[in-house]
């Protein structure tokens, strides 16, 4: 018995490990790129990308070590278009493309301070966190209330209205962008955080749908029992449904946080002062019309991504928490 379960877990580990390599690749690449000097960032023609950041090897006189025709030497200087190298005591003049500069593992930390210098990081972080926190709270509260209506109360026309809720997700945003902006302008909200936060208090169809599905999985008998105990709908909502829906609510909070954390277009359109700009917009500042600072961009991307990863890792248990069906026969 013990060996059987050991074998099973070994197999599971192997499969997971193999698949993980594929899934973790972009994150590893992002982190490793953030530690590279800009000349190493993109794969050279015909070569695989460099996963480990490297630096040049220098001798005591500060000359670079090179490899020429399989032999090690140092680079002395340049003459015209050729390189001058010293190989085994011999001074040679060779074409630059025939010389390979030796590399050793070395981390280029400078991308990080540079990245922080290029944008107003702490200000943008605070703005982003403010928007994310507000939106997450508003979404969880409003969507659970609305989802309750579509799942735990029988009322005429309910399913038709639910289809309308779903339908509002089916129209591409480009088509309503301008009239929606006009609505916000008419309300006087443009140039502030309001268009980004206040609508969240009125429910988002995606999460209404998600929570509705979960709420419908909770046995009706539990509601009935609470009603017998004298609870009204709000009471059932607060004391029965919500405590049993932690995985779904946690998922809602996480997804909404992620979406809002990375949302670039909406803040860009509605904000009019760069002191209100969010991290997602700031990330754009690493690319300009005719150049892109890839090292600092990846460094900032890593900084922006890392906390979310930690958040997910720590909050996982709420997803896998099972319901305890106390007092219920199978």
């Amino acid at each position: 018995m013990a060996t059987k379960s050991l074998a099973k877990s070994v197999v599971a580990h192997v499969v997971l490990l193999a698949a993980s390599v594929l899934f973790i690749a972009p994150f590893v690449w992002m982190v490793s790129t953030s530690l590279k000097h800009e000349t190493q960032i993109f794969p050279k023609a015909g070569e695989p990308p460099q996963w480990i950041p490297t630096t040049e090897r220098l001798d005591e006189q500060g000359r670079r070590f090179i490899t020429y025709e399989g032999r090690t030497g140092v680079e002395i200087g340049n003459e015209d278009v050729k390189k001058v190298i010293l190989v085994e005591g011999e001074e040679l003049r060779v074409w630059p493309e025939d010389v390979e500069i030796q590399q050793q593992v070395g981390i280029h930390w400078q991308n990080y301070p540079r990245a922080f210098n290029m944008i107003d990081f702490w200000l943008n972080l605070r703005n982003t966190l403010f928007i994310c926190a507000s939106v997450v709270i508003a979404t969880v509260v409003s969507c659970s209330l609305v989802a309750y209506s579509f799942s735990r109360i029988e009322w005429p026309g309910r399913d038709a209205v639910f289809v309308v809720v779903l339908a509002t997700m089916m129209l591409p945003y480009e088509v309503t962008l301008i009239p929606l902006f006009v609505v916000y302008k008419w309300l006087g909200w443009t140039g502030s955080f309001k268009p980004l936060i206040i609508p969240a208090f009125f429910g988002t169809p995606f999460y209404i749908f998600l929570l509705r599905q979960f709420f419908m999985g909770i046995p009706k008998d539990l509601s009935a029992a609470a009603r017998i105990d004298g609870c009204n709908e709000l009471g059932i909502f607060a004391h029965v449904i919500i405590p049993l829906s932690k995985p779904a609510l946690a998922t809602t909070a996480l997804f909404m946080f992620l979406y809002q954390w990375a949302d670039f277009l909406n803040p860009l359109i509605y904000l009019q002062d760069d002191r209100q700009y969010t991290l997602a917009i700031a990330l754009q500042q690493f690319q300009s019309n005719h150049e892109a600072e890839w090292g600092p961009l990846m460094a900032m991307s890593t900084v922006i991504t890392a906390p979310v990863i930690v958040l997910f890792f720590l909050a996982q248990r709420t997803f896998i928490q099972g319901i305890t069906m106390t007092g219920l026969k199978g």
Partner: protein
Amino acid sequence: MFRTYLSWLGMALACAVVLAFLWPSEAGSEAEREALRNGRKIITYWDRSQGHEYETHNELIREFNASQDRIYVRTLSVGWRIEKLLTAIASGAPPDVCSMEAHTLSQLAPQGCFVALDSWMATQPNMKPDDFFDHLYEMVNHEGRVWGIPTLTDSYCLLWNKAAFRKAGLDPERPPRTLKELEEFAAKLTVRGPGGTVEQIGFLPWLPWDFTYMWGGYFGGEWFDKERTRVTAASDPNILKSLEWQGSWVRDPNDPDAPAYALDSEVAQAFYNGFSAGGAYFSATNPFYTGKVAMIHEGEWQCTFIPKYAPSLDWGVAPIPQPEGAPPRSYSPSTVLDGIPSGSRNPDEALTFLAWFYAERSENEPSPASDYAFLIHNVPARRVEASQERFSGDPKFKVFVNELMTKPAVYFPASPVGRLFADQTQVAREYVMFGLSEPEAALKNLESKVNAEWDRVRPKTVSAAAP
């Protein structure tokens, strides 16, 4: 029950604390608030540049703010996407000044989105029509009026890899001068590796991006009718020739006599993707820098990027060869310009700011506009600025500037369907390249599509005014 209420209360309290802690501070920087206190007029400038270019622009604008005490310019980097500017203009709350590309101006100016500037420009030093490169002045011109001030422009030349020339047995100091030589050199510079892979190509007319419009112009063709109101390319034999010539660079599998310089279409597409994909263009792995492409048609910004990303590359620059007998032209597809939206609340202050930006600071001290062009390695929009010493200091950059100074440019004329037209020229070339269409049919398709759209966009007032 009570416990549930307690936990609800606790959570609500925690949320309130978190939000209070994160509550954003007042908008507006310290400098701006001080400007407000001092009674300055605050005007907004939305800049399409980002990153280092935006920073450079911002420094010059800070200089303006510091040089006088009436106006304070608040800048915002909005990026090149049009959604932000469009929604602001459409809802009647635009910025006071903004920068944009010529295509965007061409789409919005006919809808009355901007303030006409020609009468004002006539009163300014160095803003007469002759001061600008001719084609730039044309690009901001609609129905006889000028709607923006060109700031920057680009110029293109042929770049070649001298080491590759050497390896192929060509003189590294002698670029191709005729189209025939271009084809011959390209054939010699194509290096095939084991297993049928292509390790290096000589040249492709559409690297690093599509130049179909330019080649049509270089071949002496006219894409539009004289009044520039319709596309007439399908009936112009020179345009047809240019498209056929471009098509000849892809090997027709049915043709036993394909030219020596022709490549297989997958190879051609793969090399094209090598430029447009991801960040390869602005990095050490740009296929020209790594020697995968020996000759390429490129812009003046390479004078800064090659030393940065490929310092060991030995390269040369020269005007690109053009067909025999065709009038010599340069290529300058677009311009970045500043304009004042119609709904601006402070147009006079905006004009004051623009006057400062485009005027020479003093005798022999260059304008901030030319400083900007120099610092971001572009060509300034005005001849007198482009002739400044610093733009000729680098001999390679000088070749680019010279192109614009000595040859009339092939440029996209101001048209509300300019973007569609540019895209369709690329589509036409791709269809010919993939063998999906004959050149003539591709051009006819382009014509009908663009003309139909042009009719849709043109204000219908013309027919109403007719007797």
